[in-house]
């Protein structure tokens, strides 16, 4: 099947393009077309970028990995049913379960029909459908997948974990110390973001987008802003484009530094955490001094940015880069040279190249297992097309490889910050901060792919003429990484789970929405 037919070749044959969807086309398919698409997906040529519901329709987005072509497809489901993609694209399963829980859409012939986000606690079923229903009286317990065998025992963990982390449930089945299977149950942090966005003015929805996942607040804000700007055909000021990239790279560095230290800490090497957390704090303070918020929340807005870099900002940023260049490499040398640390990270939590490709996992999870994908480069967006950077890719697929991808990305981001500071365009006269107003009166549909520190975020938005959000679906990279964590821990000992988990660092809030 691979390479048999180009994505657009097939879609032009089986679907009709929808007007006003930017920058990539959206095709409306009939049921036959949807089935033909599923056949095409049996190959490995197309990555699933997302799948989301509406009360009477289901949408999905794909990328042809070879050419980089991107398209969205839609199927009207007047009966609330659609053929499932999960048999050919296992990554679609949890998204389909989420679409069922929120919109009541039934995925036919799915590989797993269990509820996902709905824990029978909302007081309502399918809350975002046209006709929400009353909750089920006395709902039964959630059924975990059966595991059978001699000498197996189960270890339930969560939703409240031992550390200061987000809630989720992990069901380990172990034989002695060795994990035979891990099953995740998520959805505990479901706050109803998609529902809250509906009918809100763009500016308010942007605040919700900034709080989808706090550690990737810049990236999620950027994805939302770019999707809105695509829908309205808005051009943002050049300086805003560059400032956005600056914030995104600061966020990437801060998160990677925190995680590198935390991974080592989970291997009982607390020294690294003590060191990298100081560097992380240094980055956050610089961000605070430059943009007025340590995490730079609500600083990227549709139309531009909400604050400009102060005069001393460029100097502060260059000082930061210089200090990190001095203090980070010795720590990397220590990481690489400590046998006790390497013993825990090398060959632990292996994920195969085949799996990351099958699931379309991005970020350090994909790149540590050979999947050379970075949304900054493909499809690419400004200003990265004018900046020089490398995307580090390794093939070992273990915890160590994921640490190294992060180390290399920190180095790349430092260089990016230097380039951005050197080339930052001037602000137009008479503006407090670089942004353009979004005029009401136009609607449209837009999509954006943005590279967060943990991988690519897809945001799809449909705007009404009066400047409100009709429907928005932000898809966090974690959707395609969480399932791989289940695979990564298999065959490892229970004590290595924190290492595996931290090397992935999937978002709970971003996933649960």
């Amino acid at each position, binding site marked *: 099947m691979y390479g048999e037919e180009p994505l657009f070749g097939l879609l032009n044959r089986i679907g009709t393009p929808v007007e006003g969807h930017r920058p990539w086309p959206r095709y409306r398919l009939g049921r036959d077309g949807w089935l033909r698409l599923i056949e095409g997906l049996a190959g490995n040529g197309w990555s699933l970028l997302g799948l989301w519901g509406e009360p009477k329709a289901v949408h999905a987005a794909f990328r042809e990995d070879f050419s980089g072509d991107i398209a969205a497809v839609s199927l009207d489901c007047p009966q609330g049913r659609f053929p499932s993609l999960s048999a050919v694209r296992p990554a679609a399963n949890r998204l389909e379960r989420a679409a069922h829980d929120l919109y009541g859409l039934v995925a036919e012939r799915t590989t797993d029909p269990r509820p996902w986000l709905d824990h029978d606690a909302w007081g309502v079923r399918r809350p975002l459908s046209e006709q929400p229903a009353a909750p089920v009286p006395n709902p039964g317990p959630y059924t975990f997948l059966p595991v059978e065998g001699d000498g197996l025992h189960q270890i339930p963990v969560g939703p409240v974990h*031992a550390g200061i982390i987000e809630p989720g449930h992990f069901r380990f089945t172990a034989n002695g110390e060795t994990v035979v299977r891990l099953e995740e149950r998520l959805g505990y942090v*479901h*706050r109803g973001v998609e529902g809250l966005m509906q009918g809100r003015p763009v500016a308010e929805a942007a605040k919700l987008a900034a709080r989808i996942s706090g550690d990737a607040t810049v990236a999620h804000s950027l994805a939302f802003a770019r999707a809105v700007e695509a829908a309205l055909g808005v051009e943002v000021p050049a300086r805003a484009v560059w400032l956005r990239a600056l914030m995104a790279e600061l966020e990437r560095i801060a998160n990677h530094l925190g995680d590198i230290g935390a991974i080592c800490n989970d291997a009982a090497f607390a*020294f690294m955490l003590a060191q990298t957390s100081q560097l992380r704090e240094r980055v956050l303070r610089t961000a605070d001094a430059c943009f007025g918020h340590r995490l730079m929340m609500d600083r990227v807005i549709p139309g531009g940015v909400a604050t400009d870099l102060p005069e001393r900002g460029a100097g502060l940023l260059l000082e930061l880069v210089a200090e990190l260049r001095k203090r980070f490499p010795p720590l990397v040398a220590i990481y690489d040279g400590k046998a006790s640390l390497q013993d825990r990270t090398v060959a632990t939590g292996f994920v195969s190249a085949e799996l990351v490709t099958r699931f379309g996992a991005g970020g350090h999870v994909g790149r540590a297992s050979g999947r050379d994908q970075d949304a900054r480069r493909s499809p690419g967006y400004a200003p990265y097309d004018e900046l020089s950077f490398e995307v580090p890719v390794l093939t070992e697929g273990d915890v160590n490889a994921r640490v190294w991808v992060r180390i290399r990305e920190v180095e790349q981001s430092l260089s990016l910050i230097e380039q951005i500071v050197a080339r930052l365009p001037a602000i137009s006269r008479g503006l407090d901060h670089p942004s353009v107003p979004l005029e009401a009166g136009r609607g449209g549909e837009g999509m954006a792919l943005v590279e967060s520190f943990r991988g690519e975020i897809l945001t799809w938005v449909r705007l009404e003429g009066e400047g409100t959000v009709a429907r928005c679906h932000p898809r966090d990279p974690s959707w395609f990484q969480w399932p791989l964590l289940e695979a990564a821990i298999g065959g490892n000992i229970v004590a290595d789970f924190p290492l595996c988990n931290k090397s992935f660092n999937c978002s*709970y809030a971003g996933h649960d929405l």
Partner: protein
Amino acid sequence: MLKHILTSLTGGPVTETAPAPADPALAELAGKLDKAAKARLGRSLSIREVDAGSCNGCELEIHALNNPIYDLERFGIRFVASPRHADVLLVTGPVARNMREALVRSWDATPGPKWLVACGDCAVSGGLFAGGYACVGPVEEVLPVDLRIPGCPPRPADLLAGLLALLETSAAK
């Protein structure tokens, strides 16, 4: 490694001076702690953090309290792994309905005397998520709140000031 340790030994501490305990927080706490509790708590405080639907922004800043710059443990305040070891539940998020039961169970598992701190705008007021089908709203809708630390997310210095206030009040007399 050795060079690093020597540099750290000779370089002096990186830890910063603590902020003054937050006054409004102190006022809020006054009268809430009885004498027996003060006697039992002394000058140490064990905190169990519970994320009840946060975007993880608050967690990032709570984590920062443990770094060498804020170094929370120098005040006798530490984060513990179980509510059974805790004096205080530090709760973030607009209490997602899917987390409500877990939060209540964590509170029930915390031995008295115990206090509850609502951390961040979501926990204090429900934030942007109040009124949706998926969130209960402020933590006080579910459990009695002793101290509120607003902010989105609160800066580590604000968190520290709030927690110090809790300690000061509980240790007074």
